[in-house]
């Protein structure tokens, strides 16, 4: 077991006062067999009782309805998380061919349809200049995914602000640059093309210096490997997810996991800053 302390902070400033707003935040660490939330605290510019509800995939969201005018909104979450240590190396009890057969059975595909059919953000353009590794059942699925992870890691160059949250894969492949969302969407897209269920994951990463993802929210991908379950792959860092990956939520793509969505009645622009710190002292 390893314990982590994390802090998420976001502050939005508005040029002209906001008359009415709804905010939805997806930033609470998930509780699952690999991680436990030991302590959770919120503070907010609005002195209001917090309301939690569950989103489509069952993850807790923080909701605010504010009907009195304001020109600043900030929110802080701090949490203590216990992570189970895992060795991120997997061997399936199934033969490669049996894994392949199972993945191609109609019932399996229907049961996992949400993570097999493309969304707008995971759409591969009709013409692609790169030959992505093809899953043919010769390798074990896990081995194939390691190859794919490395392929995408090498294909793209990490470059902050080269893309935004709505950048389609087509554009990412043209500029060959991106941030963690883009690595994740591309990974998901190749998986779904190969009939492998893959879902987008948002979370916190504590890897120390030299790894991408510290200091902000991170994104990676979980893939359903028969008999093993959903295994995390981080193409941005060419790693398989271990206990340093603290999951918030998963969904079909980024839009299911946006850390904050606001619907505001206001005119003029806004400035937004956010920060994330994760420590294991």
């Amino acid at each position, binding site marked *: 077991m390893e314990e982590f302390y994390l802090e998420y902070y976001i502050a939005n400033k508005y040029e002209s006062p906001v008359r009415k707003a*709804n905010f*939805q935040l997806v930033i609470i660490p998930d509780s699952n067999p690999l991680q436990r939330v030991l302590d959770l605290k919120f503070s907010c510019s609005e002195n209001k009782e917090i309301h939690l509800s569950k989103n*489509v995939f069952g993850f807790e969201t923080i*909701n605010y309805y504010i009907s009195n005018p304001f020109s600043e909104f900030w929110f802080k979450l701090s949490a203590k998380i216990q992570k189970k240590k895992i060795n991120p190396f997997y061997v399936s009890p199934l033969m490669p061919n049996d894994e392949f057969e199972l993945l191609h059975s*109609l019932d399996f595909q*229907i049961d996992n349809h949400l993570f097999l059919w493309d969304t707008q953000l995971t759409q591969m353009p009709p013409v692609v200049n790169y030959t992505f590794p093809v899953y043919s059942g010769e390798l074990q699925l896990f081995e194939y995914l390691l190859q794919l992870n490395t392929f995408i890691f090498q294909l793209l160059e990490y470059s902050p602000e080269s893309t935004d949250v709505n950048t389609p894969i087509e554009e990412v492949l043209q500029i060959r640059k991106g941030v963690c969302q883009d690595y994740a969407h591309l990974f998901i897209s190749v998986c779904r093309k190969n009939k492998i269920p893959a879902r987008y994951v948002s979370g916190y990463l504590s890897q120390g210096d030299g790894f991408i993802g510290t200091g902000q929210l991170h994104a990676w991908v979980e893939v359903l490997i028969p008999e093993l379950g959903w295994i995390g792959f981080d193409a941005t860092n060419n790693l398989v997810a271990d206990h340093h990956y603290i999951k918030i939520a998963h969904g079909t793509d980024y839009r299911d996991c946006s850390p904050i969505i606001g*619907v505001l009645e206001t005119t003029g622009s806004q400035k937004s800053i956010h920060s994330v710190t994760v420590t294991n002292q």
Partner: protein
Amino acid sequence: MKQPANGILDSYCLNNSHYDEVFKESKEPKEHYNSIVERFNQLSLSDFERINNEVKTAFFNQGITFAVYAEDKKPDERIFPFDLFPRIIPSQEWMHLEQGVIQRNKAINLFLDDIYHKKLILKDKVVPADLIFSSKNYLKEMVDFTPEGGIYTHISGTDLIKHADGQYYILEDNLRCPSGVSYVLSNRLALKKSLFDLFDKLKTKTVYQYPEQLLEILKTVKPKNVDAPTIVVVTPGMYNSAYFEHSFLAQKMGVPLVEGRDLFVEKDFVYMKTIHGPKRVDVIYRRVDDEFIDPLCFRKDSMLGVPGLMSAYRAGNVTLANAPGTGVADDKAVYHYVPDIIKYYLNEEPILNNVQTYHCEKESDMKYVLENIGKLVVKPVDESGGYGITIGTTLTKDQIEEVKVRIKSNPRKYIAQPIMSLSVHATFIEETKEFEPRHIDLRTFCLMGKDTEYILKGGLTRVALKRGNLIVNSSQGGGSKDTWVLG
């Protein structure tokens, strides 16, 4: 039968290439039309025109209008053209229609429940999984969620036509809050004033209970733990083409008519702003499309919705009618599977016919289509809005060859249907001051609640006013007739 000299229907010209609703080939009226033809023939042309004008004025005064949209123009407010000659459906014929429409809508509701839960019909390969999961109307927000009472399509409008063979065929299903019912009630009100004696004589079924029945249906799906639900109608606003209907239904049901901005969601409950403070809302008859109902969940730029509505809905604190995500079942591609859907869930033969459809991916169908292109309408399965459709009778020899090549290159992409001929009905044409045959269709209205259903005994008969026109939509110059179902 004996008719007075110079009856206003005497000059009616039968067109034997279409099924005539009113007259036999001998030009005698069909039995159920006897008394109305007799009645009209007693009127002089000027009497008839006077009644016609009275009715028009009544419509105008009631504000029964619709808006026609054109790019870069203000919406054009028009009176919905109404024809005084009612369409009459005999009791036996109606029973058959009613059973067929209820059967179809029950099956569709079961289908929606299945594709959002166990998906057995997909696993049994009756309907292709890809057709459903790649549809933009299939909503992940509805997966594994059960709306109150298991009802998805509280209100559905099933469109039918009568073909040259005298049989009814389903043209399409409308499962996303179909409109038109307010015209049915207004038409009746207008016509009853001028023809009340015939009503009684023919024992015409009333349509007036519709708003009351709609209210009852909405009450049956109230959230649990609510005794006396607050029900509202949500409209996109006064610029919507069906705004008249939204306000009409709200008024007749005696419930508030609101816009998205009049509601808000706090802690997963929906409230309406009132002068006495917030009031909780339990059931929403929404006339706003799925993608606009909640900017937190669907289109972020929607000004018509209520942020957080889907979360409140999924928490079981409010009921939406119709349920979001029903559009997946009324798309063109799914239409062809509805007869199979009926057999699958109800273990019954479909009572009403679908238009016969040939799937070119099937070898035998493909052979038939290639040999009979001149008699068929060929449609690509994945296009909408009429794009890529060819009508056999309008094609030259070269064009027929082109279509054949296109089908052969990608058989999976094409379906073909016989060219359906809509029945015709005597209709008063103002330009010629005569009754002429015009094509008609019929929209029926079916309501479904928890353990209860209701079908409006009548419907909206739409009529194509332009000669030879097959398009009956009001935006395309169509009008409507009152529809009498006999007792």
